[in-house]
């Protein structure tokens, strides 16, 4: 039982959020400030991958973003 508890405690550092969160080395509000700037950029650039094909397109987006890190 003690071993199991130890294992669980050791595993806690692995419980990082699935979403990466920018570290706070700067002043409060920066996230919201950048978000408005980037919203304008996003709207003007029109970046995106069509969702017409639904899941398949989301998968393609993921595969394209990570294709350099491993092979299938």
């Amino acid at each position, binding site marked *: 039982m003690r071993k199991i508890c130890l294992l669980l405690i050791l595993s806690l550092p692995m419980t990082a959020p699935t979403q990466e969160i*920018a570290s706070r080395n700067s002043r409060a509000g920066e996230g*919201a400030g950048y*978000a408005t700037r980037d*919203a304008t950029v996003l*709207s*003007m650039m029109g970046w995106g991958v069509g969702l017409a094909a639904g899941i398949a397109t*989301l998968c393609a*987006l993921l595969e394209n973003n990570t294709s350099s890190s491993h092979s*299938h």
Partner: protein
Amino acid sequence: MRWIVLYFPLFLYSSVCYFTPPADWECCQPKNMSPHIQIGFVGKGSTEFRPSINLAVEEVDVSLKTYLKAVKQIHLAQGNAVWRDLGPFKVAAGEGRLIQLCSFSPCGEVEMFQAILIRDHQAYILTAAALKKDTPHLKETILKSLASLSIVPNLWTPLPLEEQRLQLQDFFSSIHTRPDDIALNDWNAMQWIQLQKIVEKEGSSMGSHWQFLVLKDGYAEIYSKKAQAKN
């Protein structure tokens, strides 16, 4: 012992933030944007300026009131012509605040709505932008999307049916259980296809941000170094 083994996958995730973008908007994972930006979606507009919505997350150690003051200063310094605090705004994860901004772009006057929620030392910021002339027919859709901001302990929790939750949970638990007679590449490909089927079938009502997060986590787990070593 069995109880701990069964529930161990729950420790793989802490809180997850997601929202429901408008149904026909396109997804993008910005690479050249602020590190605070998690994901963005763009819709169709009347000009080249397309309506967009993005989710940003920032670590904070201040209250919502103090955070809003800081945000106002930054926004006004950025040259936004109008900054309005529209007051408390209920989102699925709790009570936040809604801000309205106006600025100018080469395509015309831009109107933005920003919903901010602070929880557990994190500021969750949803920002929607559209040309002012497009906002009358988009406003309701945008506000509905902003209000959908949810924070959940893991990705299967928000699924409506227990059966669906268990199916997704079981999938993540079984990623590293490759039978000896199946080659690693084949196993990974099978798992990846199976996950896509689960997301398509069970998560059709969850919106494309939730779908994207499940696929992203599953993909990372299937092709992780840990999986390669174990398999």
